[in-house]
């Protein structure tokens, strides 16, 4: 009797593992990773406010010069995921359109003020949007200040 309980649970688990795999719809986080990382690093939602993500998702037809259209249900799920996890920094009312670039955010500029202009131009870096060139843990959401794995891009 008591032995049958773990056995039943094992069977249930095995059954669900087999049956559940193919029909499972991907989570919003998985969709975000899959679609965004198909072209560039999947930038964490907290790096932009919700307004910016909405504007980006509304303008995927010309996404920084590229058609990055995603099918509608996936786009809706990704937008919900981004908005739910967005940063809480207020968008500065500059009168112009909602800022879309992480790299022109005031906090981004302040955090990278010690990085020399020549460093950005290095062939292995190329652009401030290339997070992983220096933040080796960026893909797994780690942007810590510890850049010991890099060749020391900071201005002395």
């Amino acid at each position, binding site marked *: 009797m008591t032995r049958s309980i773990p056995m039943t649970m094992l069977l249930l688990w095995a059954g669900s593992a087999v049956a559940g795999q193919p029909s499972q719809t991907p989570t919003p986080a998985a969709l975000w990773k899959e679609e965004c990382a198909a072209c560039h690093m999947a930038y964490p939602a*907290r790096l932009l406010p919700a307004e910016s993500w909405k504007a980006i998702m509304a303008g995927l037809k010309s996404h920084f010069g590229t058609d990055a259209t995603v099918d509608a249900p996936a786009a809706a799920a990704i937008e919900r995921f981004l908005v739910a*996890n967005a*940063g*809480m*920094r*207020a968008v500065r009312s500059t009168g112009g359109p909602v800022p879309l670039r992480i790299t022109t955010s*005031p*906090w981004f500029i*302040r955090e990278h003020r010690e990085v020399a202009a020549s460093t950005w131009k290095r062939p292995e870096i190329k652009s401030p949007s290339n997070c992983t060139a220096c933040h080796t843990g960026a893909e797994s*959401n*780690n*942007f*810590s*200040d510890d850049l010991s794995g890099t060749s020391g891009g900071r201005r002395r």
Partner: protein
Amino acid sequence: MSAPLPLRRVFVWDVPVRLGHWLLASAFIGAMLTADSEWLRLTHVRLGLAVVALVLFRVVWGFVGSPYARFREFITGPAAVWRYMRAVFSSTPEHHIGHNPAGGAAIVGLLALGLTTSLTGWLAYQDVGGEWMPELHGASACAMLTLVGIHVAGVILASVRHRENLVGAMVTGWKRASGGRP
């Protein structure tokens, strides 16, 4: 050993005071632990917002809460704090059912520092105030951590001197009221 005093149990800390106390302590500890992590920045910001909500609630509760929760019951001024501090080290520590004057002063300080730390943190997160805003936020947090340390040391000292469990009282709400003045 002194003669056993007649024991009377009194209900001192109402639910909002106790819940607010431990939630504030948890939010502060959580915020300290997430302070340096870029990865957990939003968690840190949310804990700071929780601190603001809890402090603002406590300020309102300090006017409309149950008698021992009210500011006028435990805000005493520096002279009473000094007298209490001297008494607590003497052979006849003065006993208070509610907050003692030093505890009352710690509450005022912690509420004020909770607000300034959260406010400077929010401004720093919003890139307002330039280079010195994060510095101010850090200094305010350090001052708060120091006062938390003094508060905890004071609770331990008073518990020993008065032979009562002040931590337990902040959990259950009940305190032992013996002889002495209220």
